């Protein structure tokens, strides 16, 4: 999804941050900012992995009212 960063986004950004930190042109102040952002991303990614639970929806289309789409949890 576009609005909240996905774990994939976090991973990519993290690897980008590390690359920029390794670049000697990066100043100390921006290095500190990058580090802080990196720590935040790292924690959010780790939290996402730890909390993750598979959600299974069944997609239903109501034929009665012109095809409204509903999501219901799929019965195991």
């Amino acid at each position, binding site marked *: 999804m576009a609005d909240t960063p996905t774990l994939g986004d976090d991973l990519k950004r993290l690897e980008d941050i590390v690359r920029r930190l*390794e670049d000697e042109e990066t100043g100390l102040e921006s290095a*500190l900012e990058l580090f802080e952002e990196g720590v935040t991303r790292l924690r959010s990614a780790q939290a996402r992995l730890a909390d993750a639970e598979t959600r299974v929806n069944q*997609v239903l289309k109501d034929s009665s009212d012109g095809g409204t789409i509903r999501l219901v949890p799929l019965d195991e």
Partner: protein
Amino acid sequence: MPDFDAAWTVSHLAQTLKRRVEADGAPIWVRGELTGVKRYASGHCYFSLRDDMARVDCTMWRSSVARLRSPLEEGSVVYALGHASVWEERTALRFNVSQVLPASAVGPAAQEAERVKQLLLRDGLLDPGRKRPVPEHATRIAVITSVAGAAVRDIITVAARRWPGVELFVINSSVQGATAAAELVAALDLLCHLEAIDCCIIGRGGGSKEDLVAFNDESVCRAIAACAIPVISAVGHEVDVTLADLVADLRAATPSQAAEFALPDRRDVEVRLDRARRRLVGVTAALLRARSDRVERTRDRMGSALVERVRRAERRLLAASGRLAPALARRVAGPREHLARIESRLLPAMRRRLAAVDAQGRALAASLNALSPLAVLGRGYAVARDPDGRLLRRAAQFTPGSPFTLTVSDGTVAARTEDSHG
């Protein structure tokens, strides 16, 4: 004069022909009309296959005859699976048949599939260039299959193991039977109304060849090709590739494999995260060490340069004083003492300045360390920030009465400056 010594024996001719005919051992399907069917007491069958132009004699051994699902009917059109061989005794070609299927049982579906394939080819829907990559970190995956089938269970199981954070959207559809094709098309249409789906798995668990007809259906194939997101086909049938498999962006042999293609393995991601964490901390620490070393080196260089300048001045004075009349020597003694005094004051002052720069670097390093997930705040470090989030590094930045926040191991604390001492 012909070379009679080189003449072949009949046996040699028969053997050579046999070797050449049988060199390619792969069985082939031959379509033809059954004629002259004879079954002997031994259990073996002999018959011919023919069409308008040609005819071939066939043998079918007892073991194969026993496996026949329906008897060989004179005059019926069949598909016979076998391989050509040469019967040496007569140097006669024989087609050794292992399986016979009535054309009426396989004909229409196979013919329809072939017809659809030609249409899809003509419209470019089977071009490899059309295939889209499946996203690396899918978080929302649609699954089109029968909710009563094994496929959906397999996909859920693999997802829970590999990538628990995924959300699955199951769209129920028959996967075999008269309405299957129409239901699959409707499901693909419904898919377009869901938001932000990363990819779609369409398929079923294992089935017989006849059960796969819906996945060769033209409308199903066209709907897959028209789908806005990448589609993974998962028709659980290793041997037969369906047209849906050819149109899909990726073909998986089974629904479980489709889930593996669509989802990364959490263990791989954990390894990547851990590597990023170690590099992040390592590279920042190295960066700070490098700055700190530079401060040290600058201080050393500046210190020794200063001493060197003072010494040079001293030598010049001495040399000058040596050349002057002794009477003037007294006048020189004054500046010389002055210089010595300057040296004794300048060096400590310069050292104090450099030490302050160094301390600033160390304070920065300390605040970085406090943020590091390795050197946890739990050890008792805290980071102070002003209301704008700027780090407070020196006592001078704390004005009495001003608010600031302290970040400790498990959260932040609002604080206010009572007094400060630089």
